[in-house]
């Protein structure tokens, strides 16, 4: 008897299209819900957490002296040998010691962003920043030189990260760039 009752109930459900209506309600709910798409690069950009390993940056002290002493430990530690360091003597006070880097370049095509250079650095000069936009139209931009890496990064070390920040999409002759505004952020929706 109970089985018959279940069967009849099943039939009534089928005739009234209950499953179909249930499915339609689910999709309608999604239709009116807010989209989770990041509007990258026009309006929003993901700012990663501090632990993120992006393009290298060479740091300075608070007084503006270069921290790098050209000890070449980073290039020795590098598993892909993508870092080239050539030291030179300098007593004008450019660095914290009188040995500074004449050349410090990294080949981003070979780099695997493992962070060993960061660990090997005795003066915490090499850090992996949170910059991850590496696309370009020729190979010239894949090698980053010391001068470029010494410039301050877009997202400072002190910034917490892990948020979506408001951004601006900039086109110029030199290429495209996405500028973030760290004061306007929102959490990632789940």
């Amino acid at each position: 008897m109970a089985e018959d009752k279940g069967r009849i109930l099943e039939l009534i459900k089928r005739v009234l299209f209950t499953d179909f209506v249930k499915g339609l309600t689910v999709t309608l709910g999604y239709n009116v819900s807010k989209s989770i798409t990041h509007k990258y690069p026009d309006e929003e950009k993901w700012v990663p957490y501090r632990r993120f390993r992006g393009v290298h940056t060479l740091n300075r002290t608070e007084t503006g002296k270069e921290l790098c002493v050209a000890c070449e430990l980073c290039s020795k530690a590098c598993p892909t040998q993508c870092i080239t360091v050539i030291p030179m003597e300098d007593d004008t006070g450019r660095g914290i010691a009188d040995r500074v880097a004449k050349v410090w370049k990294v080949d981003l095509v070979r780099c695997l962003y493992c962070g060993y250079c960061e660990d090997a650095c005795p003066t915490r000069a090499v850090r992996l920043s949170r910059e991850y936009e590496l696309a370009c139209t020729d190979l010239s931009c894949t090698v980053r030189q010391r001068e470029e890496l010494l410039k301050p990064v877009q997202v400072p070390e002190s910034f917490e990260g892990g948020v979506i920040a408001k951004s601006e999409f900039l086109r110029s002759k030199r290429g495209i760039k996405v500028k973030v505004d760290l004061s306007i952020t929102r959490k990632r929706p789940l």
Partner: protein
Amino acid sequence: MPDTSTIIEFILIIVKAGAIAMVLFGLPLPLTWLERKIAGHIQVRLGPYRVGPHGLLQPFADMIKLLMKEDIVPYKADKLLFVIAPLLAMVPAFAVFAAIPFGEKVTIPGLDYELTLYLSDMNVGILYILAMSGLGIYGIILGGWASNSKYSLLGGLRSSAQMISYEIAVSFAVIGVVMLANSLSLLDIVRAQGGNILHWNILYLPVGPVWFFIFIIGSTAEINRIPFDLPEDEGTLAAGFHTEYSGMKFAFFMLAEYIAMVTVSVLAVILFFGGWNAPFYIPLPIPPIFWFLAKVSFFIYLFMWIRFTLPRYRYDQLMNIGWKILLPLSLVNVLATGLMRLYF
């Protein structure tokens, strides 16, 4: 020498036909945008967003792309049929609109001239529409046949089998409506549903809703939309009958498909939802065409909504539904409607 009123009448008909054709040619542009937007939002995405504000110019970009594309005719394809097939699919879709009414007479303010919102009031309008929309299938079959590709051929075959099994159920559903209205003319069918929502065919209990569901299921199969889009089943047949088509020929197939969707929405509104009649009395001067367009847009939305909700049926399931459920159900329903007409 015919008198001036005949000439004016003649010119008006040409102008109206031209206007309808222009609207129909333009209609797929907003509809493709809408479909992609709805797809996006149902999948919690945004849909087209970058070309113009909210992606509004995306259809124009697509159109330019289709126009510029290389027009490929496959080696060993039947050239003549291959070229004719998209036209055969498209022309009947347009021809259907010769019989579709959009409203009663309206008086143009200022000119004091009465304008009818339909091209012709055929006394067998619904029959003409069924016949014409059935012709559109030839384009699909021939397109599948001429392409010299197994996927296209299977798509065309499926299309014809599907048409045969579902056209019958749809025709029976239409017979039910004709029995209720005592006329084959679409204008009379709408007039018979005049008044408030209780007079609409969908609420002619208990047979009205059954007719409606038979009609909507059957016509979903006829216009090849999910869950019955087996002729272009991308999971198993690449793209079905239009696998080998590109450029403008492909666009013609898409055009025919979107117009067929509009036709079915319009028919559902006219046959079951009271056409341009207001659902209840509102003491405001709302033009009847507003109600008509609102109802049609709802049905268009419904078709897109269903498309991104349901999975596709298997081919044997499709045949089972057509022959074993819809056909017997519609026969029983014809009997029930007849008895109700006799005794109530």
